[in-house]
């Protein structure tokens, strides 16, 4: 069958079976700092400060002082060029052994989840026995770069040999060259911000304002309830006076959310539905996840919450609008589930990152659309429905905020804890699905299973 999309292998003998790994990679636990709104409590803290704070909390929680970890990987999306070794510097500033090897990774908002996947794979292959995955982002302490004109002049000045040469180069300087450039969230190839891109997808899938506000409300209510029940007590360490995510509005309501003016897709007129309430705010924060082989965790008498079963990455051709910028997980999940011979009905929890409320709703709508699933995913019919009572049950990015690279670690630690608790309570293995969309039309998804 020829389709104009990315085919999903059918669940028959043509499926490339998942290669069984020699051993498991388990999630021991996680630690993050509460997420702050940009310009808030962490305004003066650097990425390195926040990542070190999250790391130090993890080290203290699991007694990792002076431990030589197999490998640490983390990253930041908004990263200053001087922070090329951001994660290594954070490790050197932590209580871990200075002999712990480290790498930095960058995959936009999927950075955090990709570090979990990559390190889990190394553990499964026996290359390492322990790992710490993580991510951090500061929208407050963002790198500001000089203009292309000034950059060109500075580099030429460095190469100049004589005073006349230098003066000649300096004479090229124009006032406009002195204006610094702050980072934005615009896609380089389209010039559209992420919100503007999502607004197009939102309109395409006819996601209503009410549905988006309802999802946002649930995110706040679920996150507030999780805090009230003590869910985050062993997932967080306070930093700079924050003990809860600063973006959380426990008292928000549909009325309050409905009163906000649309900020994205305003050129769509009455079709503009995306507000500051149903979009994630710019946020500062960091998260970490401790991964291990069974033996390593057992030898240290550490908990084993869940195993990293499998993962899949996808990308979409969003540049000229074939697919929405944030719709790559729509393609990744069916492929992953086919490989694992699973359906949406086999999951107890779904963690779909709320870049925007409409991103989650567009994803769900696409999977329920027979036409789309046939023509674009190469399936026989609709991929299926996600049981909404299993979706983001302890809140997600709309309430917690979204420090880009830190979101993956937040989700993985929380989900691993939820899976472990539910498996304990029900005496059966339980599964969770993680889905994170990213800039550049990318997405990473993963399956976790209780241990």
């Amino acid at each position: 069958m020829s389709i104009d999309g990315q085919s999903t292998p059918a669940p028959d003998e043509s499926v490339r079976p998942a290669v069984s790994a020699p051993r498991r990679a388990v999630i021991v636990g996680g630690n993050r700092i509460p997420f702050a709104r940009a310009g808030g409590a962490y305004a003066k803290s650097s990425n390195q400060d926040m990542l070190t704070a999250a790391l130090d909390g993890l080290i203290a929680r699991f007694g990792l002082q002076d431990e030589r970890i197999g490998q640490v990987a983390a990253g930041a999306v908004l990263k200053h060029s001087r922070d090329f070794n951001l994660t290594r510097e954070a490790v050197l500033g932590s209580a871990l052994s200075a002999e712990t090897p480290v790498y930095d990774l960058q995959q936009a908002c999927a950075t955090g989840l990709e570090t979990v996947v990559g390190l889990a794979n190394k553990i499964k292959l026996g290359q390492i026995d322990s790992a710490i995955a993580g991510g951090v982002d500061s929208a407050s302490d963002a790198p500001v770069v000089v203009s292309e004109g000034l950059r060109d002049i500075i580099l030429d000045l460095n190469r100049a040999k004589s005073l006349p040469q230098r003066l000649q180069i300096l004479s090229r300087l124009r006032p406009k060259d002195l204006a610094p450039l702050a980072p934005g969230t615009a896609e380089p190839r389209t010039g559209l911000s992420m919100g503007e891109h999502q607004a197009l997808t939102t309109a395409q899938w006819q996601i209503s304002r009410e549905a988006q506000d309802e999802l946002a409300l649930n995110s706040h209510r679920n996150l507030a309830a999780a805090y009230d029940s003590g869910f985050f007590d062993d997932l967080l360490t306070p930093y700079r006076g924050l003990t809860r995510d600063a973006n959380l509005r426990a008292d928000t309501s549909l009325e309050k959310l409905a009163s906000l003016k649309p900020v994205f897709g305003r050129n769509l007129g009455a079709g503009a539905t995306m507000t500051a309430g149903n979009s994630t705010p710019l946020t500062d924060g960091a998260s970490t996840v401790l991964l291990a082989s069974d033996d390593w965790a057992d030898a240290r008498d550490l908990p084993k919450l869940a195993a990293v079963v499998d993962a899949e990455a996808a990308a979409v051709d969003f540049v000229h609008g074939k697919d929405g910028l944030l719709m790559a997980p729509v393609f990744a999940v069916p492929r992953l589930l086919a490989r694992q011979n699973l359906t949406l009905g086999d999951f107890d929890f779904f963690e779909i990152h709320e870049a925007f409320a409409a991103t989650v709703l567009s994803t769900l709508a696409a999977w329920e659309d027979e036409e789309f699933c046939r023509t674009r995913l190469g399936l026989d019919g609709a991929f299926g429905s996600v049981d909404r009572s299993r979706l983001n049950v302890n809140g997600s990015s709309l309430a917690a905020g979204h420090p880009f690279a830190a979101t993956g670690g937040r989700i993985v630690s929380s989900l691993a804890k939820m899976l472990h608790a539910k498996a304990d309570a029900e005496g059966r293995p339980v599964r969770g699905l993680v889905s994170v969309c990213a800039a550049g039309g990318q997405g990473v998804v993963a399956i976790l299973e209780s241990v």
Partner: protein
Amino acid sequence: MTLQQPVILAEMPSLSKLYVNAAAQAARRRLLGTHDSADLPAESHDVRGVTVDVGNLTAYQHLIGETASDVLPAGFIHALAFPLAMSVMNRDDFPLPLLGMIHLRNSVEQRTPLVFTDVLDMTARVENLRGHRAGTQVDVVAEVRRAGSADIHWRGVSTYLAKGLFLPGIDKPTAAAPKPEFTAPAPTALWHLGVDTGRAYAAVSGDFNPIHLSVLSAKALGMRRSIAHGMYLASRALADVGPARGDAFSWDVEFEAPVFLPCRVALEISTDQASSGAWKHSRYVAWNPRSGRRHFHGTVSAL
């Protein structure tokens, strides 16, 4: 000896006022002559309920190369308590002139970590007035507790020298054995200190002593150029020792030659481990890479 009641100050004294007062006192003593007492004030100065400005903490941490964690760096606490310590030395019954005193050595015990949300009580007193081959030296002791608690979490002893000042009844010690010649080891670090190093540390520590601020203000006080704050140098060395030092440690420094700005400073930091592999202590020594002259050296040890 009767136990002296402390003098409780209503708030942390202002360093700039203390400096002005010290200058006035110096002029007064020059005009009226010194009273040549060899007694130290027995009273301590206390200030209660000191809070930390988190923005100031972050700026301090970034300047000296500490990660901006919630824990107060030991050198930051020194800076917090410094005005109180100065206020004791600024008393009329303190026998040495405050201006021009030289910081010889500093010794800190960080017994348990303090975080920026802690409200602090502080005490400072002077003790141990004694001779020095070049003048008279004295110890200023500062202690920091959590508000309302008697436990001392941080204790600092700063030794200052009043050069060329000899008080009656205080014996000049016999000349110390000559120090062994210093041979610079291979450096493990090199600091590039800009001419604004003193101003930058003044901004985060509040110590705007003119000898640190600019060439002109330093010359006015008889220095040929501005010099780096001793506690800036020692705090950076402590930061360079890194997280191996743990939560409880002692930190000593002995200052030998001023660091004129701008300059480069070479350092060697060496670590001794117990047979178990646990960190015991780190030694640091800093010198001028051009002249080979030693600037300062010290240790950080597990408590």
